[in-house]
C-alpha cells in the first residue's frame, strides 16, 4: 500500500474518531453537555489528534529508517567478489537499487510474474536486455550475486512496507480505542487537546532547526566523503581547477573563489553607490509623490526572479559589452565575462542596498538633522557629515548582507560569467564561480562516488560557511545599530 493511501486511511480513521468521541461524550452525560468538563468538540479534537499524530510520527520515522536498515542488510550479503575491480560498494548498491526498480517496472507492465521471478537467475536469463526493455540501462552484465541482492532488496522493501502499514494502522486504531474508552465527564479534554496542539506548534518550529541540521549534516558528511577520495590540501591550496572524467582531476577551489569574489566585487561597486544614493535621495530629498512612485518601482527590481536577470545578461548586456567594450579594446571576445555578470548582479542588488539603507537612514533621529540645520548646514552637508556617519554601522550591515547575496547568487553567474576557471585581473574575461561549479558538477547526477561530483559538496560547504559568516556579522552589526537609537 503506498504512503498516500495509508495517510488518507489514517486521516479517515481520525475523522471517524472525532465523530465517535463527540457522540460518546454526550452519551456519558445523557445528552446534557453542561455536565461535561469541556465542550464536546474538544473530546473530538483530542481523539482526532491521538489517532492521527502518533501514527504519522511512526510512519515518518519508519520511512526514514527503513532505507538505512535495508541497505545495510543487503550490503552485508553482497560477497566481496561481486564488487568489480576499481569499483566500490556504493556503485554496486546503486545497481542493486536500479535492478530492483526494473523488476518492479516489469511486474507493472505484466512481462514478469512473482512466480517467474523466483526461478529467475542472472546466469540463465538475459536480465540486462529485459531491463533495457523497461528503460533501465545497465553498464555491464548483471552478476548472479548482484541479482540475488536485488531480489532480496526488493523483498525486504515489500516486507518493510507491509509491516509499516500494519504497524501504522494498528497504532491508529489502538490509540483511537484507548482514547475513546477514557472519555468521561471529568476528563479535562480541552487542557489535554491544547497541550497536544502546543506540542505540535513546537514541532513545527523545530522544522527550521531540522532544515539547518539537514543542510549542515549532508554538507559535512559528503564533504568528509570527498576528502577521503581527494586530498584536502590540494582542494584548499591548488591553484588549478580541471576536473577530468577519467580521474586525475585538479580540484583546487582557489580559481572559483577568485571568480566569486571578483564578480561580487564588481556587483557591489555598481550596487552600493547607486543603492545608497537612491536611499539618500528618496529619504531626504524626494517629495511625497516621487517617493511613492520611485520607491515601489525600484523595489520591483527585487521581486524579479534571478533567471530574468540571467537572461538579461545573456542576451542583452553580454553582447553589448562584447561588441562595444571588449572587442574594441581588444581585452576580450566572449559575451560572458566578470563585468557582464557583475553589472547585472549589481542591478539586482540595487534595491537590496537601497531599501535596507532607506530604513537605516530613516532610523536616524530627526533631532540630529535639526541640530545640523540649526547650525546653518546645507542638506548635503547634514547627510554627509551627520546622517551617514550616524547610519554607518547599519549601512555596513546592509552592504555585508548584499555581499552575501552576491556570493550565493547562482543563475546570473551561470548565464553571465562563463565556465572557465581562471585567475585573471581582466574583468572582460570569462571566469567562473563556486555556484556555477556546484551546478555543473551536480546537475542530474545522483551517484556520489567520484571526487568530481563530491567536490560540489565541499564547494557548497564553503559557500554556506562564507554566507553564514557574513550574515551573522551583518545581523549583529545591524542589531547593535538599532539598539543605539531605541
Amino acid at each position, binding site marked *: 500500500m503506498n504512503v498516500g493511501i495509508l495517510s488518507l486511511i489514517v486521516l479517515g480513521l481520525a475523522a471517524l474518531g472525532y465523530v465517535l468521541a463527540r457522540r460518546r461524550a454526550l452519551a456519558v452525560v445523557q445528552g446534557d453537555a453542561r455536565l461535561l468538563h469541556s465542550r464536546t468538540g474538544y473530546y473530538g479534537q483530542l481523539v482526532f489528534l491521538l489517532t492521527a499524530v502518533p501514527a504519522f510520527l511512526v510512519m515518518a520515522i519508519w520511512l526514514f529508517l527503513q532505507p538505512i536498515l535495508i541497505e545495510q542488510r543487503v550490503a552485508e550479503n553482497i560477497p566481496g567478489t561481486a564488487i568489480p575491480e576499481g569499483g566500490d560498494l556504493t556503485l554496486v548498491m546503486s545497481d542493486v537499487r536500479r535492478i530492483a526498480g526494473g523488476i518492479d517496472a516489469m511486474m507493472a507492465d505484466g512481462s514478469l510474474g512473482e512466480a517467474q521471478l523466483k526461478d529467475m537467475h542472472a546466469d540463465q536469463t538475459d536480465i540486462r536486455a529485459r531491463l533495457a526493455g523497461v528503460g533501465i540501462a545497465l553498464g555491464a552484465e548483471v552478476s548472479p550475486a548482484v541479482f540475488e541482492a536485488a531480489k532480496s532488496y526488493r523483498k525486504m522493501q515489500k516486507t518493510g512496507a507491509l509491516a509499516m502499514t500494519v504497524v501504522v494502522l494498528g497504532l491508529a486504531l489502538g490509540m483511537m480505542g484507548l482514547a475513546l474508552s477514557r472519555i468521561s465527564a471529568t476528563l479535562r479534554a480541552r487542557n489535554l487537546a491544547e497541550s497536544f496542539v502546543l506540542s505540535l506548534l513546537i514541532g513545527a518550529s523545530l522544522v527550521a532547526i531540522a532544515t539547518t541540521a539537514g543542510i549542515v549534516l549532508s554538507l559535512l558528511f559528503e564533504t568528509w566523503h570527498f576528502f577521503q577520495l581527494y586530498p584536502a590540501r590540494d582542494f584548499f591550496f591548488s591553484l588549478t581547477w580541471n576536473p577530468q572524467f577519467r580521474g586525475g582531476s585538479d580540484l583546487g577551489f582557489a580559481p572559483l573563489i577568485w571568480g566569486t569574489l571578483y564578480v561580487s566585487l564588481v556587483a557591489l561597486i555598481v550596487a552600493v553607490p547607486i543603492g545608497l544614493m537612491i536611499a539618500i535621495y528618496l529619504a531626504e530629498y524626494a*517629495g*511625497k509623490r516621487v517617493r511613492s512612485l520611485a520607491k515601489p518601482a525600484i523595489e520591483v527590481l527585487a521581486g524579479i526572479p534571478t533567471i530574468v536577470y540571467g537572461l538579461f545578461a545573456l542576451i542583452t548586456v553580454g553582447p553589448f559589452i562584447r561588441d562595444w567594450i571588449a572587442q574594441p579594446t581588444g581585452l576580450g571576445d566572449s559575451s560572458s565575462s566578470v563585468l557582464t555578470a557583475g553589472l547585472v548582479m549589481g542591478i539586482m542588488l540595487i534595491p537590496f542596498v537601497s531599501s535596507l539603507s532607506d530604513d537605516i537612514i530613516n532610523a536616524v*533621529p530627526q*533631532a*540630529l*538633522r*535639526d*541640530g*545640523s*540645520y*540649526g*547650525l*546653518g*548646514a*546645507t542638506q548635503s*552637508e547634514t547627510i554627509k*557629515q*551627520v546622517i551617514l*556617519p*550616524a547610519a554607518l554601522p547599519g549601512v555596513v550591515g546592509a552592504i555585508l548582507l548584499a555581499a552575501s547575496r552576491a556570493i550565493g547568487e547562482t543563475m546570473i553567474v551561470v548565464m553571465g560569467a562563463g565556465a572557465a576557471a581562471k585567475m585573471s585581473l581582466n574583468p572582460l574575461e570569462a571566469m567562473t564561480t563556486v555556484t556555477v561549479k556546484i551546478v555543473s558538477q551536480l546537475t542530474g547526477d545522483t551517484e556520489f562516488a567520484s571526487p568530481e561530483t563530491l567536490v560540489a559538496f565541499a564547494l557548497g560547504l564553503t559557500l554556506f560557511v562564507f554566507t553564514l559568516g557574513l550574515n551573522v556579522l551583518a545581523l549583529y552589526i545591524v542589531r547593535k545599530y538599532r539598539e543605539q537609537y531605541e
Partner: protein
Amino acid sequence: MFDTPKREAAVTKTDIKMSARNCQVFYGDNQAIKDVDVDIDDKTVTAFIGPSGCGKSTFLRCLNRMNDTIPICRVEGTITLDGEDIYDPKVDPVQLRAKVGMVFQKPNPFPKSIYDNIAYGPRIHGLARSRAELDDIVEKSLRRGALWDEVKDRLHEPGTGLSGGQQQRLCIARAVATEPEVLLMDEPCSALDPIATAQVEELIDELKQNFSVVIVTHSMQQAARVSQKTAFFHLGNLVEYGETGQIFTNPRDPRTESYITGRIG
C-alpha cells in the same frame, strides 16, 4: 489683535535685532500662528511663554526658517533681521541660520567627538583658516558654554558619552561656535535635572552680553529668572509682550493673569 501698538514705544530703548509683523503660520490648512507682531532686542534675553500647543515653538522656528524643513508649513507676513526680510527669496536660509543659531529641547550631540561637534559649524561655514584657529574657536566656544574645564582632557571622545546637562551645554557651545547674532533656545532645560538647569540658566545670562537670546520655556519661574522681556502666547496669538517684571507683576490682559496665576495652561 489684542496687543496695542503703543506698548512698543515703551519698550524700544535698545536696538531692535529682529522684528515680526503680521506673522501667520499655517500647517496645511490649520493656522498655528495668527498675526504676531513682536520686536526682539539686541543683547537681551526674551522669553516666550504660554500653554502647550500655543505656537511659541512654531514661532521660534520661524525666526531662523527651521520651518522650511517641514514641507506643509507656510509662513506669511514679514520677519526681519537687522531690517532685512529673512523670507526674501534672495535670502539663503543657510546663511540666515549661521546668524540665527538654535538649541533644541533634547540635547542632540552628533555621534562624533566633542571637538568635532563644536568644530562642525565653523568648518561648514569656513570660519577657521588653520587648524590652530579652529582649536581656538573650539576652546573659546567650550569656555562660553561653561564646559571647557569638564571636557578639556577628552575632546576626542564621543559627545554622546556626556551626561544630559553636559550634552545640552555642548549643544549650546556648538551653536555659539558659529558666532551667531541671535540664539534661539527651544525649551533647552526641559530634559535636564535642576542642577543642570541652573548651570544652563547661568550660561544664558552670560550669553546675553554677546547675543540676543530668545528662549521658549514652559517654566514661568525660569522666564522670570533669565529673561528681561517676556511674550505670552495663547492659542496662536501673541497676547501680551513687555518687560518681564511687568508681565509677571502687573499683566494687562486677563488671560495672561490667568496663566501666570495657574488658572489656564
